[in-house]
């Protein structure tokens, strides 16, 4: 018997319509994957109170969660596929590579501590060949760069004193790979008179759940819940610049932990642009945004789509005078977090990304905006060099106003 259990009967509602299978990025390019309906609700229904069944093809689920959004009946499809992943990991064991990839935070800490070396090594071909042989991490796969001066080193504020207070969940990518995104967010909040605290936090757990490390994932989830709850109780809003962290804090925590605390925290989670949109709707957003004569394409990450909150990035960017942003509607990028770093999944990752590559490559935008660091990784490798986080653009617009004031 596993040490964790998933009690979720939402599969009772499944009408077998297969809407989730149709929308699934993996099912769209591979017949080897049983699809979310089969490996989520169907799998749970056919194993509940019976012997556990190990279905290896569950490895092909990227846990992107778009299935959840497609379900007309509100079945927690991705929670159920995460359960299947955990069963598979428990039955078949976990490779050193998958274990390593699932510990994004630890990898981030180590890689950024030796950042100049790490980044170079990751670009040396023989080193990558060696990694491919030993770890089954494809040599062709680009890696994001790690920053020695990571975000947590630079930002240590634990408390906010303004009326509106934000607790920032920075997430591993912003912390170790893109501290400038975190800094941009702090700045934008500053322009809005909001102080930002950085609570104690661990990796949100997304890479763990995706690699079947349910036990460790739940540990992180409850640790983060406890830490964030203190802030929620003090009236803070929890904001993150990462769409995957947001998706996990909002959807996975209450579903996996099934505690009142997790539910309470989940109701106070916002993506950075979602939060700005909320400020705008409540008439509190600082509207002194300078005109930006730029043309951007928006790439929507699956973990953003799966939250079912629309496209807050577009909603907010459109507030910038003269700024043009268009939803590229380019599907799934195919990186899918740790998925795209695995040798045996690499061809599939490329196949999924092919649609995106074509759409983006044909476009005439100045650059692409997306909230997700992993999508950025794949966009960089397959389609386009210039990829920005929307919060960087907002920051630029605010800053331009100041510059104009100075002139």
């Amino acid at each position, binding site marked *: 018997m596993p040490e964790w259990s998933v*009690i979720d*009967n939402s*599969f*009772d*509602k*499944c*009408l*077998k*319509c297969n809407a989730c299978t149709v929308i699934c990025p993996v099912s769209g390019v591979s017949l080897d994957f*049983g699809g979310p*309906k*089969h490996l989520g609700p*169907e*799998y749970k*229904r*056919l*194993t*509940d*109170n*019976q*012997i556990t*069944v*190990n*279905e*290896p*093809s569950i490895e092909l689920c990227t846990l992107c969660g778009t299935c959840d959004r497609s379900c007309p*009946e509100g079945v927690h499809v991705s929670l159920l596929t995460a359960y299947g992943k955990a069963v598979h990991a428990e039955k078949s064991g976990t490779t050193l590579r998958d274990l390593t990839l699932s510990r994004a935070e630890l990898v981030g800490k180590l890689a950024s501590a030796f950042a100049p070396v790490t980044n170079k090594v990751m670009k040396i071909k023989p080193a990558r060949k060696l990694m491919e042989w030993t770890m089954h991490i494809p040599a062709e796969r680009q890696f994001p760069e790690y920053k020695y001066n990571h975000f947590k080193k630079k930002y240590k504020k634990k408390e906010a004193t303004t009326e509106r207070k934000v607790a920032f969940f920075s997430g591993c990518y912003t912390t170790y790979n893109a501290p400038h995104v975190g800094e941009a967010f702090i700045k934008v909040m500053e322009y809005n008179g909001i102080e930002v605290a950085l609570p104690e936090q661990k990796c949100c757990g997304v890479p763990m759940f995706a690699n079947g490390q349910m036990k460790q994932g739940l540990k992180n989830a409850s640790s983060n819940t406890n830490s964030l709850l203190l802030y929620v109780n003090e009236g803070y809003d929890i904001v993150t610049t990462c769409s995957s962290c947001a998706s996990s804090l909002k959807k996975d925590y209450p579903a996996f932990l099934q505690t009142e605390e997790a539910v309470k925290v989940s109701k106070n989670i916002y993506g950075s642009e979602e939060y700005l949109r909320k400020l705008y709707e409540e008439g509190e957003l600082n509207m002194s945004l300078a005109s930006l004569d730029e043309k951007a394409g928006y790439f929507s990450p699956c973990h953003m789509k799966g939250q079912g909150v629309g496209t807050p990035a577009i909603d907010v960017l459109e507030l910038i005078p003269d700024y043009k942003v268009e939803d590229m509607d380019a599907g799934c990028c195919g990186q899918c977090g740790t998925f795209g770093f695995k040798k045996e999944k690499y061809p599939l990752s490329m196949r999924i990304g092919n649609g995106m590559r074509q759409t983006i490559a044909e476009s005439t935008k100045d650059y692409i905006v997306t909230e997700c660091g992993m999508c950025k990784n794949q966009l960089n490798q397959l389609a386009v060099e210039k990829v920005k986080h929307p919060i960087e653009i907002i920051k630029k617009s605010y800053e331009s106003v100041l510059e104009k004031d100075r002139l």
Partner: protein
Amino acid sequence: MREKFETEVVIIGGGMTGTGLLRDLALRGIKTILVEQFDLGHGTSTRNHGLLHSGGRYAVKDKEAAIECYRENIILKKTVPGSIEHTGGLFVKIPEDPDDYVHKWVNMCNETGIPVEKISLEEAFMQEPYLNKRAEAVYRVPDASVDPFTMLTDVAADALNRGAGLLTYHTVSRIETKNAEVSYVVARDRYTGVEKEIHAPVIVNASGPWGAYIAKLAQIPLKVINNKGMLTVLNHRINKQVINRLRMPGDADIFVPAHDVTIFGTTGRNVEKPDDTSLEREEFKQMVEDGKALIPNLSNIRSIRAFSGSRPLFEEEGEKDLSGRNVTRGMALLDHEKREGLKGFITITGGKLTTFRYMAEKTADLICEKLGLHQGCLTQEIAVPPRQSKEFLKHPSLPALAKKKLCSWAGINNSQIHSNLEEDNRVVCECEQVTWAEIQLYINQSNHFNLEDLRRRTRLGMGPCQGSYCYHRTAALAVEKEGVSGEEAAEALTDGMDKRKKGMNVVAHGATDRQLKMMEGVTAVSLGIKKGGKAHV
């Protein structure tokens, strides 16, 4: 011109008792033909809980039936292994039920030799998370879950292998007697209308709820009370073990795990007609209300469908001398030669699914006596072939859940299924993970294309979607690959969908209501079949 057949015994009724008798006689080397009006198990035998009683349920009420059940429970686990899952069963005492029954029950179980073990509430709740937390005592007994569909199929197949004859979809229109002795029966093919004349010195009426009707064909008055019970199929398997309420047997107090679902019931209402399988929504609602005593969350658990069947209870007329052999209160073996003076006519009725083998044994003993033969019964020793086929685990391309199904299903057909899979390995029924390979096998074994027959043999369409998708998939594939005519497939589709809808309608609220609408949508929009219209496959 009628085709004429000669045999030693004709059995009327292809339920579990008749089929069991067919095999028993085959093992004794007695030539037998069974005539069934529809598919095997059309009546009560596939319309029950699928519970292999330990005897616990009858320990207080009917000691003899309890002893019989326990003895047969052990024999069937050994002789029909592929159809039985050794789930074990729990008897649960809740505060609403009388305390003194518990002591009486434990004593009677001890007296009858039914092994009973008291388990801690903590253990019971851990094993059965849905169980009422107000339970006061829980006992474990050797109840088991039995699949009546596979049991019927396997027992019949074994009988046929041993030379028995079987006519399904043949209705008995006449029983001819001559000089106070049975002569022959006339059986008419429901599909073609062609009649067959089957001559035999012994005719056994094993037609369950149709018992009185068949007896009447031989001018024998017989009173059978048809006591209709309703059952419902829960969307998933909510329990690992059989869960019984520890009290005098009543309505809605048994939950039986059956493969991937739980069967819950039942009720009891006397009905006039043997084929009355009507379903009342009020009855269903009351049943769910009563069932909450054991499973408090019951009304939040989806029901896929409901079904009903009648228990044929034999009632002796007045205080007339018991010339028949009323073996126990549960089963009735009636020798109509002794009772009414009609030589060669026997009725076997009553009883339970669990005791079918014993009923067959007693009936076959009587037949031997009539025929002056001395062969003894072999069914307590010789097993039907098993269903387990672990080699499917190694199949390279099947989904793990389809493998799991085949591993406990394929049995003697495993090499044929293997070769069918090589040609086409698609899963047709997703809810129950039924492969085209299995369906193909049974299409080839049957003279007529009938989706409901396929369902009984493969579990096709037994899941939550109730054939919304897989019935028309199967119909289309049958036309495309098996040479079934479009007309035949269309008829099977319309008939099959109607039967599925009937069972869904009565439980249709929440998800099942939406499933029904989805099914109607698929039928009308995607397949272009108007309400009440005919399908074109």
